[in-house]
């Protein structure tokens, strides 16, 4: 439980960081390292590991002070690191020395992280993945192909889920590792997407050696460890919030206001529906945050990712329909280095194309509806054709 004393302690620590470190002069990495050392990277983590051992709800107290002083939003700089790697490493790494060795550079954004989960043959059915890890003395030898890996070309470390036992049912034969992306045998290739850009990568792993010390959790316990990562991914994607009228809907409303020549009653009602649903979801996120501190997470907290993904698509489709034939042009399909592109989101046509991924990435909307149905509403699971079978006997294709 958070107390007034904890809140004061967090606020004081944040003010000290701000007094002693100027993000504008000292640089982002130094500022974030100081934030880690002060226990403000994840206030609910233990002391010495970037936290103060206080309630997670107090993170906002620290973030407000740090960011009001011009501090960066670290999640934006190292999203997989902050959102997924940090909680998983903190909970499952083998020693405190390793936890600290990974977490401090992660927090400072000196080391970017990525995740090696999805494979060409394992998307929604992640537990069916085929990348193998075979033990060889104190090391594991990894072979396989991963896909949809964002930041792989920049990342120093990756979270890896690999199959260590093909002879047991799929969930039971997985083990979780941290892999050094600079290891021999790691090859990263950009994966071009339908927008023309390459935000993601394919990662080929060929005889990559990982020390057993970098295994997270027990051999065969990888699925349970992965749940730590995925639950955090979902809550970080679903967070949302913000002021009324901000977010994706602002693009549609802005375009509407800029183009009165294109207004029709049918389009107006369509936009109003989208605005209304955005506002209902925004209020739901606000309610979820307010009640989670009192009652824990409720059903309303699980709907954000699903709703926002579909809304994004509908909002940009509206923009395209508003523009009519004008929308049928594009700026440039030349593959460019995204890091050098100033306007990453690009013109509205690119945003429209990009939104097609929203209902797939981070859990497809189809699977999310299953999860809402089964985990929140308590409905029975679907029949599974692979239930109880050894992984190697499951048909793939």
């Amino acid at each position, binding site marked *: 439980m958070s107390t007034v004393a904890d809140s004061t302690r967090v606020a004081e620590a944040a003010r000290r960081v701000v007094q002693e470190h100027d993000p504008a002069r000292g640089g982002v990495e130094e500022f974030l390292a100081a934030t880690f050392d002060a226990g403000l990277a994840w206030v609910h983590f233990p002391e010495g590991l970037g936290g103060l051992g206080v309630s997670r709800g107090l993170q906002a107290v620290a973030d407000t002070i740090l960011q009001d002083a011009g501090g960066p939003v670290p999640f934006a700089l190292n999203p997989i690191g902050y959102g997924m790697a940090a909680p998983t490493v903190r909970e499952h790494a083998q020693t405190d020395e390793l936890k600290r060795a990974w977490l401090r550079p992660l927090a400072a954004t000196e080391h970017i992280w990525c995740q090696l989960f999805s494979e060409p043959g394992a998307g929604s059915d992640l537990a069916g993945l085929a990348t193998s890890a075979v033990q060889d003395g104190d090391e594991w030898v990894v072979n396989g192909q991963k896909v949809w890996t964002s930041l792989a070309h920049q990342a120093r470390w990756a979270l890896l889920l690999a199959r260590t036992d093909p002879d047991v049912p799929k969930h039971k034969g997985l083990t979780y590792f941290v892999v050094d992306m600079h290891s021999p045998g790691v090859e990263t290739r950009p994966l071009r997407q339908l927008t023309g850009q390459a935000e993601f990568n394919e990662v080929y792993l060929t005889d990559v050696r990982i020390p057993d010390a970098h295994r997270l959790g027990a051999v065969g316990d990888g699925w349970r460890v992965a749940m730590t990562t995925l639950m955090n991914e979902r809550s970080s994607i679903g967070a949302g919030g913000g*002021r*009324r*009228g901000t977010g994706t809907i*602002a*693009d549609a*409303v*802005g*375009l*509407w*206001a*800029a*183009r009165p020549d294109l207004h029709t009653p049918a389009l*107006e*009602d369509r*936009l*109003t*529906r989208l*605005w*209304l*649903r955005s*506002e*209902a979801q925004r209020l*739901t996120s*606000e*309610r979820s945050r*307010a*009640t989670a501190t*009192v009652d824990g997470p409720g*059903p*309303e907290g699980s*709907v954000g990712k*699903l*709703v926002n993904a579909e809304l994004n698509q509908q909002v940009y489709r509206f*923009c395209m329909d508003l*523009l009519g034939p*004008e*929308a049928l*042009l594009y*700026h*440039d*399909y030349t593959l460019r280095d995204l890091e050098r592109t100033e*306007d990453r989101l*690009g*013109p*509205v*046509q690119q*945003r429209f194309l990009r939104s097609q991924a929203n209902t797939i990435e981070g859990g497809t909307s*189809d699977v999310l*509806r*299953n999860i*809402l*149905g*089964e985990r*929140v*509403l*308590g*409905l*029975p*699971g*679907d029949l599974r054709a692979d239930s109880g079978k050894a992984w190697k006997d499951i048909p793939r294709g």
Partner: protein
Amino acid sequence: MADATHFVFTDEQRELRAAVRRFAAEQSDEQVVRRLMESDLGFDPKVWARLGAELGVLGLSVPEADGGVGGTLVDQAVAVEELGAALYCGPLFGTVLLAIPALVAAPDGEVRDALLAPLVEGARTAAVAVGDRAGAFDPAVVTVTATAGGALTGTVPRVVDGAAADDLLVAATGPGGVGLYAVEGTAAERIPLTTLDLTRRQADVRLTDAPARLVAGPAEAERVITHALRVGSALLAAEQVGGAQHLLDLSVEYAKGRLQFGRPIGSFQAVKHRLADMMVDTEHARSTAYHAAWALGDGSDDPALAASIAQATCSAAYADVAADTIQVHGGIGFTWEYQAQLYFKRAVTDAALLGSAEDHRARIARLVLATASGDAAPRVATGTEAR
């Protein structure tokens, strides 16, 4: 905008919710609802009196000085939500959603005080005949005229809870403009109507030189009626949330227990995904209804916008969830014996009362889109950039 306490219920509000739920389970189960909806009066005045005098849930946001509990609109919304979940039969719409808020907003005076106290105690009931247009006050649709001496003449069609009401609050055009008047129910000719939803009655009200007392004169009437319609919209949204949640629970339980093709129908994704969407709509409805209750209570948001957001969302959600409930249940959902039809008809009724979802969206468009700036519009590619 919203402070930290928004959306978080106090211990007292949780207890209130539990008490009303308990009362509704005892006094308004499905059998009772079915008996009352086919009775002459449409409700049980003894139970109504207990809601007022014993539970004290008819005037929760009425100031103590006016004989109320001195609580907030959120308290009242909690009680209305639970009564909506039980499809409680009684003049809630006329009395709690509209008449009491109108009287609370009306200028102090003997007429107001004499009317308000018995309504809060559950000793009398009221109906409001103001001729709203889509949930908003419009003097142009007032069909009743008032003489300088306060005698009303005219007809108001389809007044909810009008047939049994002890008091009628009527908007009438007098020499100085539109005022809000109180008429004894017995002074009006009332023609009870067979309603689509038998649990929410309506009557045509005909007034012929009916003696009336002035509640709010032309200088105040618009403000008073607008306040009542907005509070009524927020509370109606709470009722819609209560009904939608009840139907979602009912549908989920059915989908777990109903077996076809040798398995529970809830294990089929077609059914499971429909239920997931029903849950999303219900959660959205809940957020907008609670937001309206909090915002109208503490002034933290534009009341017209908050009320329309709630009504546009909740009207659509309840009606959609009710239709989906029938679908999930299949044939049984279409029968007279099964309760889905009762809620379906209430959902359709609530969606049309105080403005439809379309009406409220049109209002939102005027409040939001018409005032938006195009300065932050995203760039539009022109096809010439690459050259």
